[in-house]
């Protein structure tokens, strides 16, 4: 059951990701991406990362995507502009480099499977994990508190940067 659900969610996420990158209209892309976020959130639940799953929905689907759509609307792209992009461009070297990179990663994955890097079911079955908000909170504000504070500054910097970039008159 779990595995079957994983496959269903995974297939959904993959398919919507593919549809997302192939849409001409950015609004459609964004919508398909929302579906991908939900698929992944389902997989997080299956992997017992309940808090992460919730944050995925809230932050990605709820906040980031809304920001995207907001900007798209702010730009007010006309249809001809949206459609102006010809067939998805397939630059030979770009695609070749991407394919090469993916091939390397895939070979590495298969190599790792062959080498027995991934633990089998028997080895995995004894492990337990609490993916609750409490457990993450303890880790976040305990072990990783310094990193947490730094991310706060990072966000602050990003906000300031965004404000300056959009306010400044570029000529």
């Amino acid at each position, binding site marked *: 059951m*779990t*595995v079957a659900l994983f496959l269903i969610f*995974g297939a959904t996420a*993959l398919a919507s*990701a*593919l549809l*997302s*990158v192939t849409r001409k209209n*950015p609004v459609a*892309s*964004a919508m398909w*991406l929302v579906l*991908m976020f939900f698929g992944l959130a389902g997989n*997080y*639940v*299956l*992997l*017992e*990362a*309940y808090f*992460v799953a919730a*944050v995925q929905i809230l932050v*990605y689907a709820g*906040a*980031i995507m809304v*920001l*995207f759509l907001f*900007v*798209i609307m*702010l*730009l007010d792209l006309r249809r001809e*502009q949206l459609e*102006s*992009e010809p067939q*998805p*461009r397939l*630059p030979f070297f*770009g695609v070749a480099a*991407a394919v090469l990179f993916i091939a390397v990663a895939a070979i590495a*994955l298969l190599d790792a499977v062959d080498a027995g890097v*991934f633990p089998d*079911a028997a080895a*995995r079955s004894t492990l*337990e*994990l609490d*993916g609750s908000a409490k457990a*993450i909170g303890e*880790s*976040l504000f305990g072990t*990783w508190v310094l990193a*947490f504070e730094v991310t706060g500054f*990072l*966000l602050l*910097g*990003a*906000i300031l*940067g*965004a404000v300056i970039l*959009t306010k400044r008159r*570029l000529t």
Partner: protein
Amino acid sequence: MTSAFLSPVVASGLAIPLEWVVGLGLALFAVGLLGVACRRNILIMLLSVEIMLNASNLVLVGFSRVHSEISGQVFVFFSMVVAAAEVAVGLAIVIALYRLRRSADVDDAHDLHDVDYGPVPGLKLEGEPHHHHDHDEPEAQPVGATGEA
């Protein structure tokens, strides 16, 4: 520990083989990569970056479960923060760019390209006899080589 709420539906997350999780992450990453490489609409390129980030998040969660280590999920949390920051700045750049160019096509913006000065001018090579005038000639000769008389 499987949540009591979901226990009727799902067994432990450990039932899912890790290589499948990593494989799915790789596939999503490949989609995002090709999106970045092939699309020219800057908004969709940003979305593709989000796909890649999510692919890596998935792998982190998978490893976190298999190793029973909560830090992996904390990293996903950080990754989301970074993604949020990136989107904020990225979209700000998109807006600024759009104001300037009235276009969302990245290929319309290539101002980092240097100014084309045209072809490189040829060097005037030193010591070529035909470049010298007559009164320069003796300097190019060893002393006394010509005037032995």
